[in-house]
């Protein structure tokens, strides 16, 4: 409006000027009006360009976001609160074999295997009751359904997003077929290894028992014989057969540790450690201090019992004195409990800390300390089977003593369903 007014003034003055009625005031008026007009036009042009720049920036940013959405390596699916698909990216089309036209507006269950659709619907409702970023259905096997009907395992991350049309969910879907296949392969190969260890250790026991019998019978026959060398050889033969029997039994036990499906029960760790201590160190100079904080767990008693039995047994067997002290305590570590078994023995040098958990590993000649060398590897296997970890703290250069710390779930059931 202002510009039109200015333009009008300028036109009137210009006409007056043409009619020859010149004076100084008029000339000044003309100059002022012309200046104002120029400023107004410049302002308008500036405003126009400003708006244009902003619009272009907005458009550019929107297209950038769209490109990021489109080119994302995950299948991205935007759903409204009724579970209807609002938007999908290229990867979704590729992964599920549907065009985006076929998907937009459809319920998300179109991408879910038939038998899991009801469950999924309930899951969607639940998500919108408490919308927050999370991984979908952790702990259960999620599946996607291809347009061809083929099903495949997926992992899904969910993020709530407020859109102009209301609260929506952005689902990022990844095909995890390769991962699942690799996991299956590892499981299968582990099962095979366990089966192999079981069969080998079991079947080797029988001929070895035969050798042991023959040694026994020959020894009986040689009674009264004066050949001391022969007797000594037979003795050595017998002791090696015994050792091999111990090793095979340990291997058998180790391979069985993965197969046991013992029932879960309430286990008072205090009582358990108490009875193990009494059986291993019955009042002969060994003190086993058991901290009162040892908890009650819901677990497989045999597994936990084996762990304590081996750790306390080792502490006594490998002690360099005839008497000593062992201390068992526990720390609360959330869903897990951290147990520690400490002894005041000679300690284990740091360079051996890894090796002692290996199979058939011993740090002293077997003639000095009889043992299969499987004790700690069995402990490690049992602890890790429960989702726990074990570590050792010991450095004889600093101080005597060894402390084994391991974590064990308070409630096995809770851990599995978590």
């Amino acid at each position, binding site marked *: 409006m202002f510009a039109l007014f200015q333009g009008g003034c300028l036109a009137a003055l210009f006409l007056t000027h043409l009619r020859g009625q010149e004076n100084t005031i008029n000339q000044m008026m003309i100059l002022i009006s012309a200046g104002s007009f120029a400023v107004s036009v410049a302002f308008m042009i500036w405003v126009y360009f400003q708006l244009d720049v902003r619009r272009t920036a907005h458009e550019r940013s929107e297209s950038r976001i769209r490109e990021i959405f489109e080119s994302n390596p995950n299948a991205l699916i935007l759903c409204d609160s009724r579970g209807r698909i609002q938007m999908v990216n290229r990867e979704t089309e590729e992964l599920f074999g549907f065009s985006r036209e076929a998907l937009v507006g459809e319920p998300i269950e179109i991408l879910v295997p038939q038998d899991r659709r009801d469950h999924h619907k309930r899951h969607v409702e639940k998500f919108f009751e408490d919308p927050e970023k999370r991984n979908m259905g952790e702990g259960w096997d999620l599946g996607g359904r291809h347009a061809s009907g083929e099903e495949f395992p997926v992992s899904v991350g969910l993020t709530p997003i407020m859109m102009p049309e209301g609260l929506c969910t952005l689902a990022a879907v990844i095909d995890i077929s390769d991962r699942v296949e690799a996991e299956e392969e590892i499981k299968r190969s582990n099962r095979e290894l366990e089966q192999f260890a079981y069969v080998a250790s*079991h079947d080797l*026991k*029988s001929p070895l*028992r*035969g050798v*042991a*019998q*023959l040694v026994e*019978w020959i020894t009986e026959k040689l009674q009264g014989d004066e050949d001391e060398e022969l007797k000594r050889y037979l003795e050595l033969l017998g002791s090696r057969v015994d050792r091999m029997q111990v090793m095979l039994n340990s291997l058998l036990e180790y391979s069985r540790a993965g197969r046991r499906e013992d029932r879960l029960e309430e286990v008072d760790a205090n009582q358990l450690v108490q009875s193990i201590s009494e059986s291993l160190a019955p009042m002969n100079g060994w003190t086993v201090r058991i901290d009162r904080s040892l908890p009650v767990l819901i677990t497989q008693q045999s597994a936990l019992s084996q762990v304590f039995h081996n750790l306390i047994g080792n502490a006594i067997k490998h002690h360099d004195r005839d008497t000593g002290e062992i201390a068992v305590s526990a720390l609360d570590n959330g869903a897990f409990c951290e147990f520690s078994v400490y002894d005041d023995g000679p300690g284990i040098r740091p360079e051996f800390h890894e090796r002692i958990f290996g199979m058939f590993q011993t740090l002293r000649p077997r003639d000095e300390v009889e043992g299969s060398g499987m004790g700690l590897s069995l402990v490690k296997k049992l602890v890790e089977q429960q989702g726990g970890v074990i570590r050792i703290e010991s450095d004889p250069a600093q101080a005597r003593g060894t402390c084994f710390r391991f974590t064990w779930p308070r409630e096995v059931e809770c851990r599995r369903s978590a």
Partner: protein
Amino acid sequence: MSPERMNILVVDDDEIDTESVRRLFRKRQMPVNLHVAKDGVEALAVIRGEGGYPCLKHPCMLLVDINMPRMNGLELLEAIREDPALRDLPVFILTTSDAAQDIQAANECAVEGYFLKGQDEDYLMQAIQSAMGVGAT
């Protein structure tokens, strides 16, 4: 002592194990006639007197291993329990297998006892003695 010697058929494919059983009876001076079959197939032939074997004389009982070629101990047990003529034969198991399914399968076939080689021999001999009516040692 029984008027007739007990005939015991040891069914085991391991010669050392068979010898071990022989020594057990000898050590206890138990008056038995020991016969040996290497597997279930041979055992059935011996009990039935087939394939050129003289029929196993009564009274008799079987001492059977589980893991054997051709016909294992459990299959032999089933065959015996299905045969009306052999159904009541007393059978003892002497094996290395402590697998729960083996023990259960054997018990379902009404064995006189299930014993582990290398550890239960004393119990086995007591059980055989009482089954023979000689009484425990």
